[in-house]
């Protein structure tokens, strides 16, 4: 029997919103896919686009960034920068024909435990349907 494909989704979650949202999901005993590997960052703008490229090229099947809703950033404007960085990264992935669908940005507040569950489940399903990251088997990287 072949094992079902279980993706690895590296998730950079902002401490103030999405990470707390994920916590809320946990304390409410809501279930989200075990493929989500959360990394807590102080702000979504802490995420250098290189982190995403590194995760992707090193074989992560998906990369998720979670931040506060625009206007709600704990540091006033961090997520506005995140939005621009994400836009430039997806443009580059699209230009190079890499699968930008494997990158996801989502605004999830500390109160949105259900949204975190929904977003992570949907993203997980999408990655599952896309299959393994082709970078996993590449040698000349």
């Amino acid at each position, binding site marked *: 029997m072949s094992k079902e494909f279980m993706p690895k989704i590296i998730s950079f979650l902002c401490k103030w919103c999405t990470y707390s949202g994920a916590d809320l999901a946990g304390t409410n005993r809501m279930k989200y896919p075990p493929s989500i590997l959360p990394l807590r960052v102080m702000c979504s703008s802490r995420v250098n686009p290189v982190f995403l490229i590194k995760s992707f090229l090193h074989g992560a099947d998906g990369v998720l960034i979670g931040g506060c809703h625009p206007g709600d950033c704990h540091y006033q404007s961090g997520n506005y920068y995140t939005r621009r960085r*994400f*836009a430039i990264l997806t443009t580059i992935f699209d230009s190079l*024909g890499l699968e930008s669908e494997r990158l996801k940005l989502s605004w999830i507040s500390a109160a949105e435990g259900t949204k975190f569950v929904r977003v992570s489940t949907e993203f997980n399903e999408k990655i599952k349907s896309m299959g393994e990251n082709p*970078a996993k088997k590449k040698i000349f*990287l």
Partner: protein
Amino acid sequence: MKKSYTKGAKISNSKGSRKTILNFLKGLLKKGSLDAVLIPMRVPAGDSYAWVLIKDKKLLDDANPIAPIMPVQGANALSSCTKKGKGNLKIAALMRPCEIRAAIELSKLNQVNLESVTLISYDCPGALPMSDYLQDPGEGEKVFDSLLKKRDRDVESVKPVCGICDNFSILPASDLHFGLSADSRDNILLIPNSKKGTGLLNKMDIKPSEDISSWAKNIEELKKVQEKKRKERFEYVKDMVEGFDSLVKTFSACVGCHNCESVCPVCYCRQCYFESETAKPDIESILLKTKNRGSISLPADRIMFHVGRMVHMSLSCVSCGLCTDACPVSIPVAELFSYVGDRTQQTFEYRSGEEKGEPIPMKTYRKEETKGINELVKGAEG
């Protein structure tokens, strides 16, 4: 809105465009309107050019205002002397349009101070590839001289990115411009494009009274041709990189020397991630990767370096082509970066080096972003 200048002065080109430019600069030094000129000069070995800052007008005779090659980007030279402040010297920098655009990008990063600098541009015929020139500098000079005399752009012998350059003439940022592709080769148009430029002409008692529309029309036409070439070439570049396999193939020869990074004028960070210790993998992570993939090529993370650099600097890329010149294994880095740079600059409705005050898109934000950006992050709300 910026005032547009539509008049120029015709000066005789009987001694050749290089001599004419030099004589003009000499005049400015003599009058004291300028203290020094930043200009390329042939190195003593005779096989390359270097940037020199000239104060003594007699030494200007040895300078070559339009060098056939671009071993060091002018913006880097300008940055090396103005990054710590403006000083009290009035400098004129005679540079190619792409060098001026790079200088503008660097001024946004506080690496160039333009306050006491007058930027002088000219209709650039392109630059020769370093490798071609080094094989036979004498022949290179001849080839380039013939390029200078042509009214059209010859794309055969110049660098590939110069062949598809569509921004080779006057810029919003240039203070003064030498229109070399004027109606006839007997004249050069001297076009002031800012208060600084007009001031210099006044000092020299040159009245910009000639109409420049026929020159401008010619440039517009050339630009259109170039835009088309650029588009066509990018279709080819797209095929070269699109898809994981093509990307790996294109960069597989990379030796990880980081030359492209060190010569790049706009690749500036106070602390470069790729040069930091963090970027150097430890043995455990290498072994883990080897275990997972069965094998791994070393030094690792070369594609990450290039894609990461695209994120960091493609918005500022001026397509000067120094990276290709510097690549020891002839990867067409410059074309790849121009291609990606054009796309990212379109996303942010930004053109590198165009406007002096405009911040680099990564250093700013809007609460309500443009449609293009919203389209790319549309999944974020759902």
